[in-house]
């Protein structure tokens, strides 16, 4: 099956710093999503990005499907950005999502 690897596993930043999270996947996919899981467990959709680049405020993401990786950029980080960031992939648009192990981000004031 598809393997999804995220790096780094843990990241500590000072407020205002920028960061890049990486997601590598082992096979071609039709669906790639980035999620932020808040301390209460809610998975919040950040991006649906099987290919290309998207931006939403301080967050942006790029997926290079031919090289099987995706990057999530967080600029000018805030303490509310803390939590776990997951990358998830699927072979179809509504099929099962396969999650990476996540990157735990802590932003210090």
């Amino acid at each position, binding site marked *: 099956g598809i393997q999804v690897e995220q790096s780094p596993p843990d990241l500590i930043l000072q407020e205002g710093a920028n960061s890049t999270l990486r997601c590598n996947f082992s096979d071609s996919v039709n669906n790639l999503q980035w*999620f932020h899981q808040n301390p*209460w467990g809610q*998975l919040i959709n950040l991006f*649906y990005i099987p290919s290309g680049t998207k931006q939403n405020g301080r967050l942006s993401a790029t997926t290079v499907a031919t090289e099987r990786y995706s990057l999530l950029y967080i600029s000018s980080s805030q303490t509310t950005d803390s939590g776990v960031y997951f990358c998830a992939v699927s072979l179809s*648009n*509504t*099929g099962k*999502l396969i*999650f990476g192990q996540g990157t735990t981000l802590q932003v210090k004031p």
Partner: protein
Amino acid sequence: DAGVTQSPTHLIKTRGQQVTLRCSPKSGHDTVSWYQQALGQGPQFIFQYYEEEERQRGNFPDRFSGHQFPNYSSELNVNALLLGDSALYLCASSLDGIVQETQYFGPGTRLLVL
């Protein structure tokens, strides 16, 4: 527009008991998927329901079963609970057959098995 809702939010059971978790999909969605998230891990796919039938299944034993109702809501049932079933159970909904459709997750049910 209501998002995905789940009930209950928390549940405590003892080994050997049975539990039923419930999920209502986002308005307009017809597909429901269930995931189990153990502490410190990413969510793992249990199964997916579409048109009231189980369409896909992950590597979970038959103790895990589900149902989808005509209004697209869904239940997850777990029989003969084990300590290892303690986890956050997440429901996700989507609209089948639509390109570029994301899956939206509910807030989850935290199950503790003692």
